[in-house]
C-alpha cells in the first residue's frame, strides 16, 4: 500500500476580528491508497477543515499537505484548481448540484475541464449515472429528484473524471436512514469494486461503520485512529 494523503505538522488558524482561532493543531496523518476513512468528532473539532485541506480547497497555516504525490501547500490557486479537477471528487451534505442543469449535465460539468469531445463527455456522464443507478433520470433536473437521488447524482459527478480520492462532507447528513444506507453502500461499492480512496466526514457512527478506518478529532487534534 502507498500513502495517498500525507500531512505533517499541519496547523490551520483563522482570524475572527482580533481573535485567532486554531482549528487544526499540528496534525500528522497518513492515509493509504484504497482506504475508506471516516473522520469523526464533535462540531468545531476541525473535521471539515481537515477535509478541505486534503481536498485542496483550503491551505494550511503551517505544515505540509501532500496528496496524490503533490505538495498542495506549495501550489498556486490556479494549479490547485487544475489539480482538484484531475485528482479529487467532492460530495457535499447538501448535494450542491446546479439547479438549472439536468442530472446528466451536472455530472458532465467536471468533464468540461478535460479535452474530451462532447460525445465522449456525454457517454462518460451516462456511465457514471449508471454506476449510481440513475441512468433513467439523466434528463431530470435536481428539483425533480429526491434527496437520495440528488446525492447519487452528486456522487456520479464526483467519480465521472475518475479521481484518485473522494472527499465526502457529511454525505448522508441530509438523508433519512434507509436512503443514507443506500448512499453508504454505494460509497462502499466505489471503494471496494472501483478502488476509490474515500475520506468521509460524519457525525453518524452508523455511517462511520461503513468505513475501513475511523479517525477521531477533538479540539483540532487527532485523538484516536482505529479500524471501524
Amino acid at each position: 500500500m502507498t500513502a495517498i494523503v500525507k500531512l505533517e505538522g499541519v496547523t490551520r488558524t483563522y482570524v475572527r476580528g482580533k481573535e485567532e482561532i486554531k482549528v487544526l493543531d499540528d496534525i500528522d496523518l497518513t492515509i493509504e491508497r484504497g482506504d475508506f476513512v471516516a473522520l469523526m468528532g464533535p462540531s468545531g473539532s476541525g473535521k471539515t477543515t481537515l477535509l478541505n485541506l486534503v481536498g485542496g480547497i483550503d491551505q494550511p497555516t503551517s505544515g505540509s499537505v501532500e496528496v496524490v504525490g503533490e505538495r498542495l501547500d506549495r501550489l498556486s490557486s490556479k494549479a490547485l484548481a487544475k489539480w482538484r479537477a484531475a485528482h479529487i471528487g467532492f460530495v457535499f451534505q447538501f448535494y450542491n448540484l446546479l439547479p438549472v442543469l439536468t442530472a446528466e449535465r451536472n455530472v458532465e460539468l467536471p468533464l468540461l475541464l478535460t479535452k474530451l469531445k462532447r460525445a465522449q463527455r456525454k457517454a462518460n456522464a451516462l456511465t457514471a449515472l449508471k454506476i449510481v443507478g440513475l441512468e433513467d433520470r439523466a434528463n431530470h433536473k435536481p428539483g425533480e429528484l429526491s434527496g437520495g437521488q440528488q446525492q447519487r447524482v452528486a456522487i456520479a459527478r464526483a467519480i465521472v473524471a475518475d479521481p484518485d480520492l473522494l472527499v465526502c462532507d457529511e454525505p448522508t447528513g441530509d438523508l433519512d436512514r434507509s436512503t443514507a444506507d443506500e448512499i453508504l453502500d454505494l460509497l462502499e461499492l466505489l471503494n471496494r469494486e472501483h478502488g476509490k480512496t474515500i475520506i468521509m466526514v460524519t457525525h453518524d457512527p452508523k455511517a462511520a461503520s461503513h468505513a475501513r478506518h475511523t479517525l477521531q478529532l477533538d479540539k483540532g487534534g487527532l485523538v484516536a485512529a482505529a479500524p471501524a
Partner: protein
Amino acid sequence: MSRLSLVWSSLFRRKIRTLLTLLSVVVAFLLFGLLRSVADAFTVGVDIAGVDRLVVSPKYSIIDPLPIAHLNQIAAVSGVTAVTQAGWFGGIYQDRSKFFPKYPVDPRGYFELYPEYRIDPAQLDAFAATRIGAVAPKQLAEEFGWQIGDRIPIEADIWPKRGGDRNWEFELVGVYDAPTLEVQPVEFLFQYDYFDEARQYGTGGVGWFIVRVDDPAHSAEVARTIDALFENSPNATRTATEAEFAMQFANQVGDIGLMMTGILGAVFFTILLLTANTMAQALRERIPELAVMKTLGFTDVGVATLVLGEAMLLCLLGGMFGLCIAVALEHQIAIAIKGILPTFSISAGTLIMGALLAAGLGIAVGLVPALRARRLAIVDALRGH
C-alpha cells in the same frame, strides 16, 4: 454540453427576470438604432451634385424672409431654367392638432417646378385666376371632407391681415396628388399675391425659392453662383438640395443630434443600472454554486469568465434583437418621415456602433460580478459567508 450552453442555462435560471431584462435591453437598442439614425440624418451631408432642383433659402435663419426681387436675379443665372417662391404660413385650421403645412405660392410657377404633382389643368387655371383660391392635396381634402368651392377658414398665428384680423379664408378650387411618389404631398397651397397684399407686415418677402437647373451636372456650380450673387447683401442665401433644406427646416426646433444623444444617454444609463442590478442579484443567488464549480476545478478566471459571459450574452442578445427590429422597421419609418428626413436610413456604422455598445454594456454590467466571482473563497462561500 458546452461552456456556452452552461452560460445560457445559468442566464435563464430565472426566466421571467431574465426575459424582462432582455426586453429592456432590446428596447434600448431599438431606440439606439432609430434615434442614432435620426441624428445621423440631421448631420449627414447631402451631395448637391446630380439633382436638378435646388432650394434657395436665407443663409442665417429660415425665419428671415428673402426679398421677392431675388427671383428675377436668380432666374437670370446661367443654368437656371425655372424659379418660383414659397413660404411658411403656419396657421391653425380648427385646432392645432389638425396641423398641415400651408404655403403661399405662385400657382403656375409652383406646379411647373413640381411636375410630379398632378392637377387638373382647369383647376390650375381656376387657382391662378381666383384671388383667394387654394388647392389641397387629395388626401387632405378627403381627410377633412372638403369639396371644390368650400371655404376653408385658417386662423393666422404668424401672419395677421392688415388691420390685425387673424382670420383668413380661402376657396378650395382644386385638389392635386402625386401618383408617382411613395410619399404623398401634404402642402395646402394658396395665392402668394393675395397673401402678400393682404398681410399686415413683411410685404415683398418670401420664405424660399425653388430653382430648376438645366443639367444636374451643373447643380453645384449654379448653387455657388446664386449664393455668390447675394453674398454681400443683407439677404444672403444658402442654396441646397431639397433634402438638405428639409433637414435645415426640421433642425429649427433645436439641435436634434444633441437631443437624440441626450435621450440615448438617459436610456442607456437606466439600462446599465437595471442590468447591473439583475446581474448582481443573479450572482448573490449563485455564490454557493460558483464555489462548487471552483471546487470541481474551474479556475478563478474560468468562473469569472462564465459570469462575465452571462452579462455579455444578455447584452449582445438584446442588442442584436433590438437592432434587427430597428432594421425591420427602417423602411416603413423612412417612408413615414421622408418629408422631414429624406436621408433617414440605418447605416452599417450605426449597426457596428450598436454591436460595440452592446459588448461594452455587457462588460460594464458584468465586470463587477465577474471580479467578485473571481475573488470568491471556496471555503467561505460553501459556509454561506
